[in-house]
């Protein structure tokens, strides 16, 4: 069959399909889409086999691709199941990342503990980690005389700090994850420096005996924030490890596989950090709450978070 007769025969159908696809809700007509997809696949195959010209093949190729994309479209309608995510997907993902979580935890905690102890016993050691201004700032923040506690707390408005914590903390977590692509080195650096910073501040404030302001402040949101940072580190380390030791996969496939594996981790980290920011802005900063209440609630949060994090073990055999 000559190309022109072929075109004349089917032009009407192609027009109709183009019109169908131009409508924004084409996907709703999925039965028709599937039908058209089969028909046009056949037309495309025929045109290629009969060596029709490039313009026609390109047109059909494009139509089939649009139909294909319509059919295999991301089904945002089949909504994200929050319950299943919390109950199964996130803990399972944590379980799969368990060795990386262990490494990330060590890299995060060790420098913190070492620096903390050193600074606690040596009055001037803090200045080898932080500069003068930062030290003064930290001291001001947790001064028992202050009316509001916390990082960069010049304002009295909790919502401002909520926004700030969300922007700042989640960005840190995201960068910590992304830095893993540099064979994991970037993530190690981020974890190390954050651990070092937090440990030093804790050591310094303990030495100054600001215990009653600092620890009640950090204990509750720390349960979510510190764990989330370690988790983002773990996801980043796994990414780096996939490049260093891809196992029986090619480096590229290993990287892709790990990228897919990281998705539930990222969702979980974002949710945890939003909870942390909420607590940090609206609960931790309050000076009117008794210290014992803060410690109790903090303790409960830590227990629940840790219990939750280990709940993925039940899926271990999968």
């Amino acid at each position, binding site marked *: *069959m*000559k*190309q*022109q*007769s*072929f075109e004349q025969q089917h032009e009407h159908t192609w027009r109709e399909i183009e019109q169908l696809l131009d409508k924004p809700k084409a996907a709703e007509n999925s039965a028709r889409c599937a039908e058209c*997809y089969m028909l046009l*696949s056949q037309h*495309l*195959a025929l045109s290629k086999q009969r*060596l*029709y*010209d*490039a*313009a026609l093949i*390109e047109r059909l*190729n*494009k139509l*089939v*691709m649009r139909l*294909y*994309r319509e059919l*295999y*479209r*991301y089904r*945002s309608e089949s909504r*994200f199941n929050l319950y299943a995510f919390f109950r199964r997907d996130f803990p399972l993902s944590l379980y799969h990342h368990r060795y990386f979580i262990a490494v990330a935890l060590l890299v995060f905690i060790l420098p913190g503990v070492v620096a903390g102890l050193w600074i606690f016993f040596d009055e001037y050691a803090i200045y080898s980690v932080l500069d003068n201004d930062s030290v003064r700032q930290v001291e001001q923040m947790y001064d028992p005389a202050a009316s509001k506690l916390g990082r960069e707390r010049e*304002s*009295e*408005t909790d*919502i*401002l*700090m*909520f*926004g*700030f914590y*969300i*922007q700042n903390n*989640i*960005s840190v977590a*995201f*960068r910590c*994850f*992304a*830095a*893993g*692509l*540099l064979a994991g080195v*970037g993530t190690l650096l981020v974890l190390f420096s954050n651990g070092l910073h937090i440990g030093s501040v804790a050591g310094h404030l303990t030495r100054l005996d600001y215990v009653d302001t600092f620890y009640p402040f950090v204990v509750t949101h720390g349960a979510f924030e510190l764990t989330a940072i370690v988790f983002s580190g773990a996801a980043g380390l796994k*990414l780096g490890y996939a490049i260093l030791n891809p196992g029986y996969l090619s480096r*590229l496939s290993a*990287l*892709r596989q*790990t*990228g*897919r594996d*990281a*998705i539930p981790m*990222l*969702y979980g980290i974002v949710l945890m950090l939003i909870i942390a920011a909420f607590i940090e802005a609206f609960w931790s900063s309050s000076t009117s709450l008794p210290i014992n209440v803060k410690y109790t609630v903090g303790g409960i949060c830590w227990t629940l978070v840790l219990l939750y994090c280990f709940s993925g073990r039940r899926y271990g055999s999968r």
Partner: protein
Amino acid sequence: MLDTSYRVEIPGGIELEAQVVGPVPRFLAFFIDFCIRGVLLIVAGIASIPFGELGFGFWFIIWFLIEWFYPVLFEVFRRGQTPGKKALGISVVNDDLTPVSFGTSLVRNLLRTADFLPFFYLAGLITMVSNSRFQRLGDLAAGTLVISVRETAKPADVSNITPLAPPTTLLRTEQTALVDFLHRSQHLSKPRQQELAKILDDITHSESANRVEQLHRIGAWFLGVR
């Protein structure tokens, strides 16, 4: 061979072909998006001033969303296209040419940070030009690529061409080449058309004036014009 064609076999045994897009259009799209994001941030900032610190709290959240989720939301809900990509006629798809999902788009866009290193997307550029599909690091990890979805040119109008039977028997591929020449002539300069047509002088036995026209007529004949 330098070739931007990317082929993938889809269900039904059909091979689809797409054109992957290189660094330059992608940078331009990024630049447009960058400007839009900047304007959005400034507008949100101005709008938040009357609300004082409450407003700034929300501004931080908006900043966070624009910084990390601007591309993700557009890629998922606008068929792989941020406004910048739409302006350039390019689109993000999975490497099996299906639309990207929220998770893959998130991975792809978070890893932008790694692509940015050590400064101004150098890592991303190096990765992009060292693989045949122009994927940056984020694309490699998410299994996505950027393809062209530009409108294709309309084929030439052949209704007023008188078809001419070919002087000799031609292979199918040669016949296709002549039809392609007919369609593509509208994008070629006159001297270039002459130059190409001249190659076939042995077959067409035409004098210089009408050799292009003659090839067009043969092309039309193969197209099925009678």
